[in-house]
């Protein structure tokens, strides 16, 4: 019986956009559908409600006339009405018409179930791949949202949206001054150090920075600021378990494949829920100059060789990024370093 293989050829990239109501998603969607002309995008929305469709537009039918509307610039807006798989399945027939798909999620905190479905449901994974998770943040109001105390056990959605993102669009800059902006950026960084923050005004995001960026690709760890991996004292004083943190670890050497493999399997099995995102850049003993990268959402890890191998004179520095809860930097560092290759006495 054959096993199923993995191949990213030719799949339509899906960008998942999260963010609070009022952060400017509708404005962004309208900008994409009506003002820009460089990209042919299919936008999947839960409801049409907020999207302003002029009466002069032609309505096309998928199942019923209200489900899909084609815009002048070739983009379409599609109403999901709860059944994402069905909508993506029907769209698959004409996915060649689009450069990218945007999945706009209202108020959803944990994108993991969507990621999981798109990556493991064969009907989905044959046609689509997750390109990146983008969080639209309202610079003026996000601190409020982040500060909101939730009843026991309830998730702070703003916090999770920021924590999961590969890219953060910092919007409504016209409403804040430099000082406020810096404060917000620092706050965001304390949660998610590795997401790229892109400043936008009136939701006019530079689309080439958020679409088809292969942000879900493991390579993105290569562009993380080296400073990030330095021991950071500011995180130490707050050991609030509800706090989402970013922990960066780096150390020299070559890893022992078997030991690292076992460590990761144990970690993912035991801590999957608390590990929101992970990224890594690795060097293994016995793998020559191949540079390995990985990225993950909870326990789903994508692993592979980097485009460029280790250069001959390049120091082998392993880097890890963990974003999540209850992260003990010292413990993680110790366990990871135990995976470094050592000659075993046989």
């Amino acid at each position, binding site marked *: *019986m054959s096993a199923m293989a*993995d191949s990213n050829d030719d799949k339509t990239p899906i960008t998942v956009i999260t963010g609070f109501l009022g952060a400017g998603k509708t404005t962004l969607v309208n900008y994409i559908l009506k003002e820009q002309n460089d990209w042919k995008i299919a936008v999947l929305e839960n409801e049409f409600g907020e999207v302003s469709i002029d009466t002069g537009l032609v309505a096309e039918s998928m199942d019923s006339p209200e489900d899909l509307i084609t815009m002048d610039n070739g983009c379409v807006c599609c109403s999901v009405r709860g059944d994402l798989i069905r909508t993506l399945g029907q769209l698959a027939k004409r996915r060649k018409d689009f450069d990218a798909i945007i999945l706009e999620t209202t108020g959803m905190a944990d994108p993991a179930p969507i990621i999981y479905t798109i990556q493991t449901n064969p009907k989905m994974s044959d046609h689509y791949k997750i390109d990146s998770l983008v969080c639209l943040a309202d610079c003026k109001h996000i601190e409020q949202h982040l500060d909101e105390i939730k009843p026991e056990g309830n998730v702070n959605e703003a916090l999770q949206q920021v924590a999961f993102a590969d890219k953060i669009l910092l919007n409504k800059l016209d409403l804040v001054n430099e000082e406020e902006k810096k404060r917000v950026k620092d706050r965001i960084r304390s949660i998610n150090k590795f997401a790229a923050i892109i400043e936008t005004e009136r939701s006019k995001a530079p689309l080439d920075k958020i679409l088809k960026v292969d942000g879900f690709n493991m390579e993105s760890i290569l562009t993380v600021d080296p400073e990030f991996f330095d021991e950071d004292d500011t995180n130490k004083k707050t050991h609030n378990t509800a706090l989402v943190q970013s922990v960066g670890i780096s150390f020299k050497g070559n890893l022992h494949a078997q030991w690292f493999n076992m460590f990761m*399997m144990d970690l993912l099995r035991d801590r999957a829920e608390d590990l929101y995102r992970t990224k890594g850049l690795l060097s293994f003993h016995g793998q020559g100059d191949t540079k390995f990268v990985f990225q993950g959402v909870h326990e789903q890890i994508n692993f*592979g*060789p980097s485009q460029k191998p280790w250069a001959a004179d390049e120091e082998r520095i392993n880097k890890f990024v963990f974003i999540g809860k209850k992260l003990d930097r010292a413990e993680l560092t110790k366990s990871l370093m135990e995976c470094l290759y050592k000659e075993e006495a046989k």
Partner: protein
Amino acid sequence: MNKKKSIKKKTTTTGATGFGGALSKLKEKTFDYTGTITAHPQTPQQTIPPSLLPPTSIPSYASTSIPAATPPVLPWVIERKDKETILKMERAGKLARQCLEVGGAAIKPGVTTEEIDRIVHQECLSNGAYPSPLNYHGFPKSCCTSVNEVICHGIPDARPLQSGDIVNLDVTVFKDGVHGDCSEMFVVGEETDTASQELIQVTYDCWLKAMEFCRPGRAYSDIGGIIEEYVSARGFSTVRAFCGHGIGSVFHTNPNVLHYKNSEPNGKMEPGHTFTIEPMICAGTQKHVTWPDKWTAATKDGGRTAQFEHTLLIEENGVRPLTGKREGDRVQWWEERSEVHKGIWTGSFD
């Protein structure tokens, strides 16, 4: 099924009734089948009472449908089997071959694929083994029968085989804690058209070439290039979506053996490794569509496709098939006409 991908979460359907059942029947009727093969009725899925087999010959998923083991995180971490396990795998391999030959001997025009499945199932049980595909991620039968344009994972059903059909019979057995996996082509009736003959010959030969390449130290990723080069030069395509796999106490594990040119870090061959090479070669496009039954993969353009499979063992000086044909087994015309090796292939050594 490698790592976390494509885990087909299945719910058992014992005689679908009600709205759900009607809906799935409708889906099957209205599905745009790409060739001449269409879904036919199936008898309900069997469950093997645990008392029929020794516990060591019942896989973890027999009752749950989900295999217990989690595969390694790193793609090049591959298990080296010890002597004892290798002996067990030899026995499982021989039995898989036996069940395949017995099933294959029954292939004739008018016989349904379900009847073949019953024969394989019975042969398996009477030899104290479990038919591995049964309930593996919910698969409803004991072997796979893939006819004409069906690439793989065809589910045995009430369709009678027709003269000129080409069918792949894929048998895996689980005995004493290990699996043995092999598949073979069969021509239904006296013969088939010239194009199908060529397809079978090319598939067989590229498979042999790939297996002969195997030696300690060589990269699993290099297997794909050998296959792709051989078949494209002759006007055929190789399926990318399905691959060969490591095998042992787990049905599908590392290494991933891709059947197309690639440079994935899927590890190096070492003595004690057991894995399959099972290229699916197509007359037309290699792209596939999946039937509403969520298993059957058929070529998108309805063109015919062929496949062969062995479970292989890497030894110090070469490679040998654990599911190889035994003396006295039927030698097919493509084995006799092969330009790579004539007659039964028993391995390749320095």
